[in-house]
């Protein structure tokens, strides 16, 4: 079942929350809407569900314009961040709700309802809790029930709003894997909203990155992480060291230092912002190396196989200003040769540059 949104715009009290967003969600995939809080991802999800009406644009479900269709007729399954389970109903009745409220003619007979609810509870591995009330369940269990309830009406699309947002780290990880496995079984077209990049990259087939009501990039987890399309995406997905400077041929001049760049998108003389991930930055103790930024080692955090080194930019330290912070990830044995306060040179492997005005 395919979903398209076309030119969706929405403002709340003068603030633009969605700015002409157009997206195509392929059938059977699990797509993550990823972005910082306030980027419009939840609003977009609610517009698709019909819980929110867009000011402009269309929502197209299976090729039909559903913009005017009421939420109860859209046949979407919606899973809420705080589950929204009905407290006065048992787990069983919660899951059965969508079947019981169907018009008399379409409503399944009682044995059929029992059969379908039991099957769903088996699917989410909660059949043993059928007679409990929601307050008696843990957060993870509640979220599974909420999912079973949404699936009971055989939705054309499953929408999940921060599905793991209210859970603690351990349960979160476990439920993530479980959701991915469930999706591989069912292949219901699914969209989930999250602000956690690790979650999006780990679970989704495709990731939609949103910022300030616009789509920044769409791609597979690998694509968006390896080839970020904008400074926002680069800095949002994982840790990054940032340099601001001007392009001089094959280099970027940052203050006194020059750094190699990867050659893309860099006209001579352009002001740019450049990124490099901590593991793509090398530390050399030879201060006469042709490229690199000089820095002082401030702290070495070694655990497991790798070490994280935190450094301060030396130019600012000398000038008495607030220093730029750098972060480098190295194999542990290499970090062992460094000492705190030591002056070193940071050499980026590929430096990804973006024009300054894009930032």
């Amino acid at each position: 079942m395919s979903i398209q949104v076309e030119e969706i715009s929405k403002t709340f009290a003068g603030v633009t929350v969605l700015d002409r967003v157009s997206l195509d969600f392929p059938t059977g995939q699990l797509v993550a809407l990823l972005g910082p809080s306030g980027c419009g991802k939840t609003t977009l999800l609610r517009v698709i569900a019909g819980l929110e009406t867009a000011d402009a644009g269309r929502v197209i479900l299976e090729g039909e314009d559903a913009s005017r269709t009421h939420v109860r007729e859209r046949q979407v399954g919606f899973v809420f961040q705080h589950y929204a389970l009905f407290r006065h109903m048992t787990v069983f009745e919660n899951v059965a709700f969508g079947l019981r409220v169907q018009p008399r003619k379409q409503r399944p007979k009682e044995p059929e309802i029992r059969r379908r609810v039991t099957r769903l509870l088996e699917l989410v591995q909660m059949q043993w809790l059928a007679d409990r009330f929601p307050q008696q369940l843990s957060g993870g269990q509640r979220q599974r029930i909420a999912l079973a309830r949404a699936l009971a009406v055989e939705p054309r699309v499953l929408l999940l709003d921060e599905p793991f947002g209210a859970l603690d780290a351990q349960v979160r990880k476990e439920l993530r894997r479980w959701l991915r496995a469930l999706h591989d079984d069912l292949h219901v077209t699914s969209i989930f909203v999250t602000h956690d990049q690790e979650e999006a990259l780990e679970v989704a087939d495709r990731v939609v990155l949103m910022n300030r009501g616009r789509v920044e990039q769409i791609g597979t987890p690998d694509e968006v992480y390896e080839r970020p399309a904008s400074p926002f995406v680069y800095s949002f997905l994982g840790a990054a060291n940032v340099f601001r400077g001007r392009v001089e041929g094959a280099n970027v001049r940052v203050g006194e230092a020059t750094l190699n760049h990867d050659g893309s998108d860099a006209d001579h003389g352009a002001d740019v912002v450049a990124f490099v991930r901590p593991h793509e930055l090398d530390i050399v103790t030879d201060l006469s190396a042709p490229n690199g930024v000089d820095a002082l080692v401030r702290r070495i955090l070694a655990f497991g196989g790798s070490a994280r080194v935190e450094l301060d930019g030396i130019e600012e330290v000398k000038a008495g200003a607030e220093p730029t912070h750098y972060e480098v990830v190295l194999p542990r044995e290499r970090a062992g040769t460094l000492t705190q306060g030591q002056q070193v040179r940071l050499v980026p492997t590929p430096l990804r540059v973006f024009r300054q005005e894009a930032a």
Partner: protein
Amino acid sequence: MSAAVSFFNPTGQTRVLPGFGLSLGYTLVYLSLVVLIPLSAVFIQTTSLTWAEFWAIVSAPRVVATYKLSFGAALAAAAINVVFGLMLAWSLVRYSFPGKKLVDALIDLPFALPTAVAGISLSALWASNGWLGGLLVPFGIKVAFTPLGVLVALIFIGVPFVVRTVQPVLEDLETELEEAAASLGAHRRQTFTRVLLPVLTPALLTGFALAFARGVGEYGSVIFIAGNIPMVSEITPLIIIITKLEQYDESGATAVAVVMLLFSFLMLLTINLLQAWSAKRTGRNR
């Protein structure tokens, strides 16, 4: 005080904050002097009656007639208040309309307006020459100085109880519940009866019980509009005053008072249980 501390503090834990003995001691003394000892007087006074005498007083036909009116009218008024109180609370929380702040503030009028003022005002309003009573004359309906008048006064008194117990529950209700119901295909009517009403029921029942309890004991707003005709429009609190107290039959007054007090304690218990239930169902703790 050391004895009191060991009784009230069986685990013997240390209290960090000061003033426990003083504040609790003062509370207990004041409560006993103003409330508990005077109230116990009612029960002790009744012991001067034999069981047969007591029963003869509280089951006399004229007294039984007042029970019927007081309890009947209070039940009906509370029921009417549940229906309209829910609609008022719903409108205040869910709809915007001009004058909403004023309406919201005036809901508490029955708490703030002295009952005697309400009484004379309601009887002027509903008398056959009054603004509202006059409208009913062509239909042959008399309100003031009939049992209907008692009902009207008790409706007035009971309004805030239902509105103010339901309103906060409605405000705290997550919209997600209704969104979930709608996304599962429920119509608005189904969402109301299957999702909202079960959550609101404890609060509605609490409001009902509060209005009912208050209505049975209400005096000031009722006596002016009731007409106080024996066997017809006489309420139980009035019978304590008129037929007993003014005839210096204190034992008789006390016997009827005991019946009313026992009812009050029963309602107090009921209301506490209802509120515990309400807190559980809405997920609010206190």
